[in-house]
């Protein structure tokens, strides 16, 4: 294939000289884009009701914590609201409220009744989806297109899905009796704040557990607004408690002796600490941790769609995705073509105001995360990988990072080994399927992976050899409540979603 020889052919000027303009308008008078941008199309935030100050949701009441935290909009640096920071006493109070609700109402309630509450909550979320999407985008920095089209529909879908299981647990585990565990402590991350709350709450509640939920320090707002919906849906007090705070609050919750089960999504480092804390206590836990997914492109892949899949794999949610396709493996024969096409595609990504409906790449979630990305990208440059960034201009205020790729990478580069959790892709080439599989598995992580080939038999052969919990074929970053999600190795323990997602929340007798 002669492709790939002319790296810059696409940027060449129109060559056909004889083509005369028609209609007197050969040269376009109307670019319909200013520079490279469409006119601003911001999603209105007028309909959003945000309070200046939020409290902790404990036992069906809003309890003021004396210590306060501020949450900001990472795209502008502006303070959005103030929230409480739950200290040890508040954590204790929340666990106590959950215990009481568990014993008095929720665990004894017939499954079909619990299901009704969950269905009601799912419907309320759908009704208020627009508002929640806007808040999610303001508090976290992700593009409104994603929070509107991906996060919120999935949130509702998860509640609907597990609502359906509530009265069918006997069929989920045939011949056995599924009993709830008790009080569940759930600590969730900042990358999909509301969606992670849904992943955690829906199966726990469906199985008859009560919950103390601790959202991330930088993105507490949608969980608090969800608590308002839970109140509106009429859940018995204490079934769901939402306490905000930083790492210390989460630690206090995880270590609380009256918590029967811990569910955590976040970094592998914290996951290991939790595992240590809980060792020997007999309390259960599930961990959904980091990842460094291999996205493997074979030379018989549908190349243009694969490029799209690469973009979706690593730039979705600014790369703040535990299952992001952050390691790209391209078969040598098409590597030049793929990289050329990828660069061209990256130039068309719209970066900027996350509330703009045309934005593809939003803001980095926090200053701290931005620093982490910078350090790792610098290490990549130092170690000799070749860095390329697309040409978008970054806004002056807020936290931003350009879509970035590294070519010429080897397994021994830090950027290939470490989870960056940002819009940074490390590209390696391979020659044979065996080499691709060996390198793909040569990582402490094992959360997800992707395989691109037009050959069905190859899909099955390769995916069965990759040690990762989720594998996509000819697509990437697709989620469904019916499909289990979770990792091998340092990517976690346990599965969320689907029938398998019920198991960690029940005791089988």
């Amino acid at each position, binding site marked *: *294939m*002669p*492709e790939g*020889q*002319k790296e810059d*052919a*696409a940027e*060449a*000027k*129109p*060559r*056909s000289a004889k*083509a*005369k*303009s*028609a*209609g*007197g*308008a*050969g*040269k*376009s*008078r*109307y*670019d*319909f*884009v*200013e520079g490279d941008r*469409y*006119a*601003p*199309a911001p999603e209105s935030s007028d309909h959003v009701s945000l309070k200046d100050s939020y409290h902790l949701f404990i036992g069906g009441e809003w309890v003021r914590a004396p210590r306060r935290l501020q949450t900001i909009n990472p795209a502008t640096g502006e303070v959005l609201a103030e929230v409480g920071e739950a200290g040890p006493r508040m954590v204790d109070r929340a666990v106590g409220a959950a215990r009481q609700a568990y014993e008095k109402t929720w665990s004894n309630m017939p499954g079909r009744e619990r299901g009704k509450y969950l269905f009601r909550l799912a419907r309320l979320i759908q009704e208020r989806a627009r508002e929640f999407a806007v808040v999610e985008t303001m508090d976290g920095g992700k593009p409104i*297109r994603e929070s509107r*089209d991906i996060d919120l529909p999935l949130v509702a879908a998860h509640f609907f899905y597990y609502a359906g299981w509530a009265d069918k647990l006997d069929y989920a585990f045939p011949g056995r009796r599924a009993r709830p565990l008790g009080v569940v402590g759930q600590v969730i991350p900042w990358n999909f704040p509301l969606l992670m709350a849904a992943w955690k709450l829906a199966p726990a509640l469906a199985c008859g557990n009560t919950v103390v939920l601790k959202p991330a320090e930088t993105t507490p707002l949608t969980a608090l607004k969800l608590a308002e919906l839970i109140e509106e849906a009429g859940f018995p007090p204490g079934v769901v408690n939402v306490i905000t705070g930083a790492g210390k609050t989460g630690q206090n919750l995880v270590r609380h002796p009256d918590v029967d089960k811990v569910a955590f999504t976040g970094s592998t480092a914290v996951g290991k600490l939790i595992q240590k804390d809980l060792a020997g206590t007999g309390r259960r836990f599930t961990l959904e941790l980091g990842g460094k997914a291999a996205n493997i492109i074979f*030379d*018989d*892949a*549908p*190349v*243009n*769609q*694969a490029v*799209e*899949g690469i973009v979706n794999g690593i730039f979705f949610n600014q790369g703040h995705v535990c299952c992001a396709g952050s390691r790209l493996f391209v078969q040598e024969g098409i590597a030049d073509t793929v990289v*050329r096409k990828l660069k061209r595609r990256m130039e*068309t990504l719209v970066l900027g105001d996350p509330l703009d*409906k*045309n934005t593809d790449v939003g803001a980095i979630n926090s200053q701290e995360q931005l620093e982490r990305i910078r350090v790792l990208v610098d290490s990549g440059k130092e170690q000799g990988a070749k860095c390329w960034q697309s040409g978008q201009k970054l806004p002056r205020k807020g936290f931003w990072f350009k879509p970035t790729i590294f070519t010429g990478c080897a397994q021994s580069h830090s950027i290939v080994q470490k989870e960056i959790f940002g819009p940074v892709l490390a590209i390696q080439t391979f020659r044979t399927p065996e080499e691709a599989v060996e390198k793909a598995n040569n990582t402490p992580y094992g959360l997800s992976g992707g395989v691109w080939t*037009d050959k069905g038999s190859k899909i099955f052969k390769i995916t069965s050899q990759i040690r990762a919990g989720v594998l996509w074929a*000819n*697509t990437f970053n697709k989620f469904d409540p019916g499909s289990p999600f979770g990792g091998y190795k340092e990517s976690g323990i346990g599965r969320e979603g689907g029938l398998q997602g019920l198991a960690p929340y029940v005791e089988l007798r």
Partner: protein
Amino acid sequence: MLSTIDQVGVEERARRFQARSIKKESKLSALKLAVTMLDVTTLEGKDSPGKVKQMCVKAMRPLPDDSGIGPAAAVCVYPRLVRVAREAVGQSGVRVASVATGFPSGQSRLKERLSEIRYAVGAGADEIDMVISRGKLLHGEFRSIFDEIVRCKEACGEAHLKVILETGELQTYDTVRIASEIAMAAGADFIKTSTGKVQPAATLPVTLVMLEAIQDYHDRTGRMVGMKPAGGISEAKTAIHYLVMLKETLGKAWLTNEWFRFGVSSLTNDLLMQICKQQTGRYQSADYFTKD
């Protein structure tokens, strides 16, 4: 090696262009651009000189009160009406395109198809919209399709050749991709989706497959090829989706009527209506837009 197409992937990508929100000055500018890209078309058994003349007036000045809008890129008619159209558009800059080669089925002998092209060019056509023999293509006679297009291109002389693939009959994206490659290699100046006589006609995903073929061909050879989705595009909103896709796939170099056309019979007035809406802030009744 020919790139394969993943159906799910290409349709998903096409939907993303529909999610773009084109507002305010971008919208107005896109609408005005779309008007200049129109191949205003009539291809009916009942076409007559009177009908064609009236259509030409509309194509030259779509909005009587505003000379800044348009003109359309071309008018597209059957060969017998080329002379009428040629006379009607005069020196306005609006080009005359003619379908030929046994349109729409292409089921006549090559000799007759070629003579039809020569007739249309002789009568003053600037552009020829030919159809390929889909039956042969589906039968795997790629070489024969290539040769036919080469012969048609020769018969065109100076006239531009648009090759209609009739994607609704090819059905799979992989076949569309193959047909696009053959047409471009054989010298097509434009590749075009449909005759408008078969459903589905132009769709966003099929146009995307063809745009990607154009891009890959350009990467290999440096030659630009134009794109013409035709049939089934009747709303301004849809036209804007096409322009977004064009801009984000092939880039700004293609954002002119030299490289992109809409083959339409009923899109014009919706574009004009939306332009007036953008300019005045109000919708006007359809009675305020001329029907020719």
